[in-house]
């Protein structure tokens, strides 16, 4: 029996809405006095369970605000679910937003090592891959330039190169391919196809049905935090497209 790469058991995530967020002492005291600390609660994900098999390419589709990204962040371990639990087997490389976590004052080269360490890789390990990272990002001319002078496309290229060069077991991709030009997009898709061939499990959030159908074999449709259906990518996409 194949072991699952990701198991999601009855997971819910509750947020307190931002307009009720108390972040200054004054507000806190006023609300305390008014006995008004009860907050508007909002469930972004409601009691969702599913499994992802090793080597699968799994898409999560749904409208804006339906809980896709929240689900991804819980799988990536960034959010802790309010209830339920998640089992993840293997190393995870999250690409929630490319170029996040770059330090603006450091150069591209220094950021490669910092970002590598964030993903759990040592300096010597990254040094081995350094050449291929910069090759892929095509940034040899800018290795010693501080990141703050980079364009968003350049940052995205570097971020993608770091996250995909180090060969994770599970790659989490959140609508990142919308940045960058056509040439880079093509390169990214090729790189992701290579990773898929190597057996990397992929979890993808995208609004582009074309991309989902092209890269994934399984899919799940989530609407307002509820799982609507799950299964073969064509079936799920067909039902999702029909409903929206």
């Amino acid at each position: 029996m194949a072991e699952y790469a990701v198991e999601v058991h009855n997971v819910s995530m509750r947020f307190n809405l931002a307009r009720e967020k108390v972040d200054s002492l004054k507000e806190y005291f006023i609300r305390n006095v008014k006995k008004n600390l009860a907050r508007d609660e909002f469930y972004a994900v409601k009691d969702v369970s599913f499994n992802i098999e090793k080597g699968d390419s799994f898409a999560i589709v749904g409208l804006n605000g339906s809980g896709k990204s929240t689900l991804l962040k819980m799988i990536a371990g960034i959010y802790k679910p309010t209830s339920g639990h998640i089992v993840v087997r293997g190393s995870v490389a999250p690409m929630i937003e490319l170029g996040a976590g770059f330090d603006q004052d450091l150069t591209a080269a220094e950021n490669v090592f910092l970002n590598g360490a964030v993903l759990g890789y040592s300096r010597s390990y990254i040094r081995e891959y350094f050449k291929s990272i910069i090759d892929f990002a095509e940034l040899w001319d800018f290795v010693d330039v501080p990141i703050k002078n980079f364009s968003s496309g350049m940052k995205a290229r570097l971020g993608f190169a770091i996250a995909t060069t180090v060969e994770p077991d599970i790659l989490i991709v959140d609508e990142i391919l919308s940045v960058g030009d056509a040439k880079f997009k093509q390169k990214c898709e090729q790189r992701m196809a290579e990773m898929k061939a190597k057996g990397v499990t992929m979890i993808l959030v995208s609004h582009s049905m074309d991309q989902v159908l092209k890269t994934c074999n399984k899919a799940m449709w989530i609407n307002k935090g509820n799982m609507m259906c799950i299964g073969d990518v064509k079936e799920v996409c067909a039902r999702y497209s029909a409903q929206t």
Partner: protein
Amino acid sequence: MTFWKYKELLKELVLRDLKVKYRRSVLGYIWSILNPLLMMLVIALFFSYMFRFQIENYPVYLICGQVIYNFFSDATRQSMHSILHGGALIKKVKLPKYIFPMARSISSFINMLFSLVAVVLVMIITRAPLSLTILLFPLPLIYLFFISMGVGMILSVLVVYFRDIEHLYGIFLLALMYASPIFYPISALPPTAAFIIKFNPLYHIMIMFRDVMYFGTLPSLRDNVVCLAFTLLSMGLGLIFFKKYQDNLVLNI
């Protein structure tokens, strides 16, 4: 143990802090030595004319107190902002959050080690007696490091929930400066103040640091016990507090 897995990240974060601190300044790390020296000069000039405390070799007395206070102030203030500053990362990648205040405390500690060069310089220039007890200098500094880290962990969480802490803490640090025997002798304090000041951990650290650097005596067992107690208290509270609130941090940054 997750800590071991992230030791590389800790190293990178500390390196980042150290690299960024003096980037684009001409003198760079020399500032870490120059800064306490110049500050000591200003205060020494001022106080030698104003108060004329009966303190032998006032420059050395002064700079010893200053190094301790400056480290505590810098480490806790840096740690306080560490979680907010690391927000972009915390929101995108799974990380142990304590690594941020920890990295800032360590980079601040390394900076402080540079300023020790200033202390030694002042000692040589003023021809202070150099005693072997100087070799014990890491002892008070290690106590202080953990006290600062514990306080820094609490602050780093608090400031995420209440941004006011940032401004309040500046006032607190000012009060703490006057409540620490940096530029005045302990004997100058009235009895009530002399009693209250004992609750200030910096007071005990300064005594110990001056014992080994300035007086050339061994730190007493009692001082060690007191400092250790403050260390355990600060780290204990810091860890408990941090553990309790760390999971919700990401939702509030």
